[in-house]
């Protein structure tokens, strides 16, 4: 039997035919990047290929890198292997990577969600023979509520805080959740402020032509009384920091899919947990996998053992792979990660 088109080795997902890696976790010559989160886009590769809208954020996070970009649907041929990007709907610039060689098609999902979040281009299913998928929330207890309701909850909570004289802090990762939260805030409630780390990411996105709702970067000059009346978007690492305590009394809200479980919510010790995820929930994962029409599914991170067993019982050829995704950035809880500002 011929070697599989993509294999998992100690550096990442490797395409031997084209001699390149997808989201490698150790330095390689040629890295195709699904999206700019730090567990997928790491430092130290000689050459990067990523979606056009990831360009500025990647350069901001990784410094001087050799980077080529593609649009969705555009194809490059690398050593005879066709590589193209399709929307993954995870964060701005996130892509599923389609790899084709001698008529065989594999798709690497990176991270994805099916709902239209109003910020990034929505997920698009791609037909393939083998689908390499994440399953961060691959258990049937994870079923998202309508995000519109969650955004309404956030605005109501902000309104209440502001009426009762509390500063509002809302945490979400600087690439992804922050834009999604921002775009659905009701500016009539008050002024919107950005923690420096998030403002930096927004500046990078702006250089890529992304227009977001206007919000003010917090600097040492920003009057504290103004901040107290508004809402502050901050990274999870800011939770409970001395900086945040300067604005007491305050209410701290955290947005994550993990907030669906009471245990995780109680561990976090946030005042409010909002169930808002940039990953597919259980029905979403099944729907996405089904839509690829694939013969084989490979699960990279999340509840890989349970979910692959479930898929096998449903008749899929499914198995788990050992990777280093999902460890650092985007769905970890505050305190579990390195400080996000320290890139």
């Amino acid at each position: 039997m011929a070697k599989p088109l993509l294999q998992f080795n100690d550096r990442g997902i490797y395409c031997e035919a084209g001699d390149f890696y997808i989201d490698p976790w150790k330095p390689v010559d040629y890295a195709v990047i699904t999206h700019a989160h730090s567990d997928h886009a790491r430092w130290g590769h000689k050459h990067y290929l990523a979606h056009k809208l990831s360009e500025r954020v990647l350069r901001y996070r990784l410094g001087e890198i050799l980077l080529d970009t593609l649009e969705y649907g555009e194809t490059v041929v690398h050593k005879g292997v066709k590589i193209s990007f399709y929307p993954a709907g995870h964060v701005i610039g996130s892509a599923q990577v389609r790899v084709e060689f001698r008529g065989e098609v594999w798709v690497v999902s990176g991270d994805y969600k099916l709902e239209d979040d109003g910020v990034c281009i929505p997920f698009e299913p791609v037909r393939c023979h083998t689908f390499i998928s994440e399953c961060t929330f691959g258990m049937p207890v994870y079923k998202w509520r309508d995000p519109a309701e969650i955004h309404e909850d956030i605005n109501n909570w902000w309104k209440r805080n502001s009426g009762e004289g509390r500063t509002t802090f809302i945490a979400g990762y600087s690439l992804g959740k922050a834009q999604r939260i921002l775009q659905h805030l009701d500016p009539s409630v008050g002024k919107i402020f950005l923690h420096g780390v998030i403002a930096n990411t927004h500046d990078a996105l702006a250089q890529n032509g992304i227009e977001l709702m206007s919000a003010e970067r917090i600097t040492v000059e920003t009057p504290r009384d103004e901040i107290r009346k508004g809402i502050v978007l901050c990274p999870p690492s800011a939770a409970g920091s001395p900086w945040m305590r300067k604005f007491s009394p305050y209410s701290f809200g955290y947005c994550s899919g993990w907030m669906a479980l009471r245990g995780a919510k109680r561990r976090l010790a946030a005042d409010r947990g909002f169930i808002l995820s940039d990953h597919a929930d259980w029905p979403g994962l099944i729907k996405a996998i089904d839509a690829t029409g694939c013969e084989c599914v490979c699960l990279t991170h999340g509840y890989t053992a349970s979910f692959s067993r479930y898929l096998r019982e449903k008749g899929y050829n499914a198995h788990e792979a050992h990777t280093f995704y999902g460890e650092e950035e985007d769905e970890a809880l505050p305190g579990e990660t390195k400080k996000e500002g320290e890139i």
Partner: protein
Amino acid sequence: MRDFAQLFSDLDETNKTNEKISILKDYFISVADEDKIHTLALFTGRKPRRQINSTLIKQWAIEMADIPQWLFEESYQVVGDLGETIALLLPANEGTQDRSLAAWIIEINELGKLSEEERREWLKSSWSVLDSQERFVFNKILTGSFRVGVSQNLIVKALSEISGLEPATLTHRIMGNWEPQHFSFHELLQEQDVSDDISRPYPFCLAYAIQETSDQTKNAGQMEEALGEPGQWQAEWKWDGIRAQAIHRDGQIFIWTRGEDLATDKFPELHPFLTNLPSGTVLDGEAICFTDGRPMPFNILQTRIGRKNLSKKILAESPMVFIAYDCLEFAGDDIRSMPLQHRRSVLEMLHERSDRKDIFRLSPVVPFENWQELYDLRLKARENQAEGFMLKRKDSVYQTGRKRGDWWKWKVDPLSIDAVMIYAQKGHGRRADLYTDYTFAVWDGDKLVPFAKAYSGLTDQEIRKVDNYVKRNTLEKFGPVRTVKPELVFEIGFEGINRSSRHKSGVALRFPRILRWRHDKKIGEADTIEILKAMLPE
């Protein structure tokens, strides 16, 4: 039920005590009296009797959720709470309901009259009209596992602010044997206590530890600094039995344990002396297995408590006495506000007049001139089958609940041993979906033999690190248990050790917990079974 479910999610959405109290007040003011008293009953552990066993509840939930059984079990491991797991797995509700909490509880209490098939129908149709949050609360009531993130103190505080009654008065009133069907909210909040419940115990007075952890051992000088003149203090051994309140009123006797369980039948040896006490007497003390003039090891008591039926054999093997240390009611009068010295003299007088001094024993007052003397004596606590000392201020009243200042426990330092983690399992509640429950082993030759399970002692941050280690270093999976590559060494502390034929290691530990993670030790440096066994008494 909708208000009650809403109360729950509101309470879940804040970490701040004052907000929780104000949410509780709003709830108690807005709902009907019947719902108030049922809510109070649930929050104080008076749950309706379990009418459907959890195996059937699970089975019917699996049918309705349409998933394989194993996936249900794994989901439960992730969520760490059965009621919540079911609420999350069921399909979205088809209808809604507006029955009150009281009405639902009445329905639940009458399920006993239905056949299994009827109960199944009832449960499925109930689930289909409850939304996710309502289902969660409903499942908690149904499975009788109603533990909430609200302490009784908070409820009492809220009710106290509504009624103007003292928290201590309310805490006392909500103790004992009442049922929401026969006790009204109105009665509870009346100026004068209208209860005629002669079984009602007093809230236990509880103590804080004078040294918070074993790392911060206090020497005699520090004790002097913290507590002052030794002459103001009464010292007693801290007995390792079951804290109990023994009541004799109007010819009837009641024995309550600290968990507010009425356990009169569990202690038949205590009945004669209690019946012979004057009517209107309430004693606080320790029920403990005792022979040849000294307490027996705790595991003997544990075996006895675990038995449903007290056979002659068990009674003979684990004879019980009552070591009394306080008197709360005398001649029908509540004397808790009298100073300890006075209460002690009443207790001694009652003891003096008792003809069952073999069973009704006094907790001896340990004389000491200075803190150093007591410090030295404390090191011998284990030989006396005691956990250390209780220190009580001589002029103190008998407090309600855990208060700082008058009563302190001064425990002996734990025994400890360095052990290797070999198995891990996920926790529950706020530790759900994290590997937090570990099994530890020591060396027996070149093999690691498991000897204890421990769940507590690590910080949240350490737990996350261990959790990550477990996930990355699993050798085998047995259901929910993972065999882990032996690499991490921990110092395990425990209060006592006894021989056990039920354990592979041949020993059973009392209250094992993690003292610290020994990053500095390799597994070869962990202790051996010989070292552990050398700690066995005699």
